[in-house]
Each structure stands twice: as structure tokens, then as C-alpha cells.
């Protein structure tokens, strides 16, 4: 934590400072030479614990939410067993909330099968590295006003650098399995990352342009304040920000291999893609990494478009910033689950076509839009309205045109009938 952050922290409500105070209190107990190490270790442990649990409950939330979307109940049986260590006889299914722990036990006790023909080393390294890389991205996310694990000047660059390595591990998994489905998945993963790394970054660049910084902290801070006291100054509430957010959502879905872009895993085509030859805990690790990646990307989206840890309305400012962040995170994840429950999978050529013919051009246009927005910062009054209209027109026009071109020749059809 920087000195600046500590200085600001002094004037804030107790709840806002609580995590830092807790950490500092613990660090003070230890001898001075080890303090810096423990300081960082606590941060790491805190992230691992919080997001490990968050992952666990994301899996159950995904299953229950998908269940509800599909008019099922989802897992609702796993609870506290009757022969628990609890002193009183307590048995409850707890709405199935302990399902992830049962799953973890199951994954741990399952046989770990490595195909005889597999490249043993890479087959082992892939799940390990995928989790490691996906965890790295958490380092620069501002979880709260004062909660940034590492403050970097070029945090966004770091985020993408760490995040892009996960596809490499998917390639490793797919190639090392010596399975044809896995190999196809590896190729798909590569094609996908080549196509979507660029749109993802391009969708973020406008924010960098307007905020004038690559630091996640600065970007989050720049979105503070409210218009008329109710509309927050979040980037998503500007035409370029809204367009950028949508592009970011699509690119983030693709980057984290979520439906409708879950091509490497494509269970209906490639059995389980790069995961075909994985079982037991290694499989669980991939799963974990997928959710970590999704969480991190959601966190990034929140930071750069949804105001980061800022409260949406002024009178709710007393709620600690990290609570807002987590709330938004839950919302984002919920949205991703909702999308997964609705959409179909694209084909690989359509996926790349969507990236290069639609998202990249739109992102570039949106960059221009953001430039326009930051140049017209001092337009007020009626000019403000003009600014809005022009900015909206800059994105909507190309969107309609490119969309029409992308979807050319395809429309719902009408059919004729024979009556005899």
C-alpha cells in the first residue's frame, strides 16, 4: 500500500480501513525484519482465501442459477451431514451450499489418469500454470478504495500480459494430451487468443485515453462523482463507455472461454476439448482457473467501466468500497451465467470473423469516439447534448452498418405450405 493510500485512509470511516488495520495489527506482532514479507504474504493469503471461496460459491451459484434459468432446482441436497462434529444434532441441506466442498473432496479422491502417450511433463504443468497465471491478474485489481495488492503505473499492461498467458497453458494441455480432440481444442484456443487479445485491449484503450493513465487505481478514481447527484460518472454511462463496455464483455467472454465462445472446451463437438484427458484434481484446477480468469476479467470490467469500487448513489456511500466491488462482481458473474444459459456456441471461423470484421473496427472507431469525448471535455449546457448525440452517432452508425454486413443474407425465414 502506498503512502498516499495510507494518508487518505486516515480520514476514512472505520469499515473502510478495517482490512488494513487488521493486517497492520497482525504485522506489528512480528519481528521487524520479517514484517515486509508477512505484509505481502497476508495480502496473497487474503486474495487466495477470498477468491478461493468466491470461486467455490461461484460454481454453486452457476449451477443453481443455470438450474433456475432452465426451470430446475440445481444442486440442493448437500448440506451438513447428520454425523457432524457439531455438538447438537443438526441436519440441514443448507440449500446445497456445501456442494463445492463435496465436489472438491470428490475431485481430490478421484483417480488421476495420465494417458500413456501423453507428454507427461507438459500434461502436469498445464493445470498448474493455468491457475498460476490466472491468479497473477488479481495483483493489480483495486478491490476497494485502499485495497490494491500491487500498485503499478502500467497496471493494465500487466493485467493483459499475465492474462494472455493462460491460453498458452490451454495449448499445452491440449497438445500434451495426445488426443485428437485436445489437439483441435489447442488449435482453437490459439486462434481464439490471437483473435480476441487485440479486441480486448482495444476495448480498454478508450478508457486509458480518457483517464490518461494505465493505472487501475487512477481509472477507478477518475470515475468518482455524480451528475445531478444520482447519475454516477462511470464510464459505462457515456456513449463511448457503453460501447466499449459491450465490446469488452464480448471480448472478455471470448478471452475467458465462456459460452458462447467456449470453443476449446466445446463439449458437443470436441467431447471436452483440452480437458478430455484430464481427471480428478487437475480437471478441477482448470475449472478453477477458468473461474479465476472470469472473476479477474469481471473485476477489470468493473474497474474500468463500472466505476470500480465507487458507490452508485451518494447516500449509499457509507457502505465500504470493497463491498461495492464484490457486489458488482457478483452482478457481472451473474450476467455471464445468464448469457451462458441463453446463447449458442459460435463456430471458429465465425468467431474470428466476428473479432476481425466487427469488434476490432468498432473498437477502433470507439477509440476515435473517446478521443472526441476527451477533446470536448469543456462543452457544457446545450453543447453537452450535442456532444452526447455526436458521440452516440459515432458508435451506433458503424454498429448498424457492420452488424448488417456481418449478418448479411441471414434472417428468419417464412415458409410455404402444401395443403394436399
Amino acid at each position, binding site marked *: 500500500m502506498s503512502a498516499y493510500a495510507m494518508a487518505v485512509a486516515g480520514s476514512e470511516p472505520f469499515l473502510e480501513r478495517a482490512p488494513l488495520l487488521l493486517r497492520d495489527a497482525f504485522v506489528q506482532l512480528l519481528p521487524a525484519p520479517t514484517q515486509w514479507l508477512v505484509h505481502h504474504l497476508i495480502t496473497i493469503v487474503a486474495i487466495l482465501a477470498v477468491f478461493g471461496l468466491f470461486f467455490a460459491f461461484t460454481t454453486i451459484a452457476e449451477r443453481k442459477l443455470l438450474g433456475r434459468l432452465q426451470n430446475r432446482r440445481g444442486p440442493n441436497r448437500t448440506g451438513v451431514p447428520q454425523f457432524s462434529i457439531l455438538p447438537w444434532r443438526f441436519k440441514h441441506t443448507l440449500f446445497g451450499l456445501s456442494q463445492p466442498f463435496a465436489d472438491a473432496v470428490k475431485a481430490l479422491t478421484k483417480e488421476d489418469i495420465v494417458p500413456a502417450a501423453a507428454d507427461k511433463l*507438459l500434461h502436469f504443468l498445464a493445470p498448474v500454470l493455468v491457475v498460476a497465471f490466472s491468479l497473477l491478474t488479481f495483483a493489480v485489481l483495486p478491490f476497494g478504495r485502499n485495497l490494491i495488492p500491487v500498485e503499478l503505473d502500467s497496471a493494465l*499492461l500487466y493485467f493483459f*500480459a499475465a492474462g*494472455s498467458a493462460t491460453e*498458452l497453458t490451454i495449448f499445452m494441455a491440449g497438445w500434451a494430451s495426445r488426443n485428437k480432440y485436445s489437439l483441435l481444442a489447442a488449435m482453437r484456443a*490459439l*486462434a481464439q487468443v490471437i483473435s480476441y487479445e487485440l479486441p480486448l485491449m482495444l476495448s480498454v484503450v478508450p478508457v486509458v485515453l480518457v483517464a490518461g493513465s494505465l493505472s487501475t487505481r487512477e481509472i477507478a478514481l477518475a470515475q468518482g462523482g455524480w451528475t445531478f447527484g444520482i447519475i454516477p460518472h462511470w464510464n459505462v454511462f457515456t456513449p463511448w463507455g457503453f460501447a466499449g463496455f459491450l465490446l469488452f464483455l464480448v471480448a472478455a467472454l471470448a478471452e475467458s472461454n465462456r459460452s458462447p465462445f467456449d470453443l476449446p472446451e466445446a463439449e458437443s463437438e470436441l467431447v471436452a476439448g483440452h480437458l478430455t484427458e484430464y481427471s480428478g484434481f487437475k480437471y478441477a484446477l482448470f475449472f478453477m482457473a477458468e473461474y479465476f480468469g472470469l472473476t479477474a476479467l469481471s473485476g477489470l470490467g468493473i474497474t474500468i467501466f463500472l466505476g470500480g469500487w465507487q458507490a452508485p448513489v451518494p447516500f449509499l456511500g457509507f457502505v465500504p468500497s470493497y463491498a461495492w466491488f464484490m457486489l458488482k462482481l457478483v452482478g457481472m458473474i451473474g450476467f455471464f451465467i445468464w448469457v451462458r444459459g441463453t446463447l449458442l456456441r459460435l463456430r471458429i471461423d465465425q468467431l474470428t470473423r466476428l473479432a476481425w470484421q466487427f469488434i476490432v473496427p468498432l473498437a477502433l472507431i470507439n477509440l476515435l469516439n473517446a478521443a472526441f469525448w476527451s477533446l470536448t471535455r469543456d462543452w457544457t449546457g446545450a453543447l453537452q447534448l450535442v456532444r452526447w448525440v455526436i458521440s452516440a452517432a459515432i458508435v451506433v452508425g458503424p454498429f448498424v452498418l457492420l452488424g448488417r454486413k456481418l449478418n448479411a443474407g441471414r434472417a428468419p425465414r417464412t415458409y410455404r405450405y402444401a395443403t394436399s
Partner: protein
Amino acid sequence: MTLALILLSVLILGSAIVALSLRNLIHSALLLVACWAGIAAFYLWAGAEFVAFAQGLVYVGAISMVVLFAVLLTRQGTASEPLGFASWQRFILALVAGGGVAGILVGAVLGTPLTVTTPGPVPVLTVKQIGAQLMGPHVVALLVVGILLTVSLLGAVVLAAEENVKSPEDEV
């Protein structure tokens, strides 16, 4: 700090050497990625944060994918087939090319006046300053690089678009 530098050098050099000596192309490519990652870590060690992340993003994240893609797409037969000795001509050409690059590098390294003084506090270079430098004094270089990359991209597009097989979806 020195220990870190030694570890990094071992990682970089070791992975590079092993990458050269391995017969399995995919393993070599992955080790090359490890080498690049090591270089990125070295930049970080040297305090060049921005360059380090750019290195990571471009090399580890993107170029490695292209290399792997190329290996997968053009691989003929099994990967572990050692290349036989083809001809003296090739041998000499390889020697000339390798020697040339090595010579330039060695010359550059030896030609650089390395002052062995303890530096003062390193000024923290922000991204903003780097940006100002790029868009200010070095704007011509940046533009040239941009044009070069654009031209190569266009060339790739032309190359890829040459094969214009009608897919069954287009015919009505």
C-alpha cells in the same frame, strides 16, 4: 538482488540453450516462451516496468501463439525427426548468418561504454513520460514502425485472401 539476477540469467540462458538442443519443436517453442518470460523478468529487475510488461504481453502472450500456430500448421511428419546434414552450401550460409548476428551483438556489447559507478536514485519513469517521449522526439520512428507493421499486415491479408475457395454456404 544479485542472486535474482543470477537466477534470471540461468533461466534465460538455460532455457535458450535447451530450446536449441531439443528435437521436439513444441518443447523448443515453449522453452522459448520461458526464455522470453525470463527476459521480461529481467526488465522488471532492471526497473523497466513498462518494457517488462510490454515484453510479456507481446512475446509471451502473442508471438508465442503465432510461433506455436506456425509449428502446428507446417509440421510435416513427426516432430522429433532430426534434420540431416543437407549440403555444404547451407552449412556455410548458416555459419555466415549466425556469425554475422553474433558479431554485431558482441560488437554492440563491447562497444558500449559500461561505467561501473554506483548510480544515484533511479528516476521512476512513468508511462506518461514514455508516451510523451514516443509521441515527441521519437514520433518519426514510431510512425515508420507503424507503417512497416501495417504493410506487413496488409501483405499477410493479401497472402491469406489469395485462396478464394467458395464455401458451400455461399452458394444458393
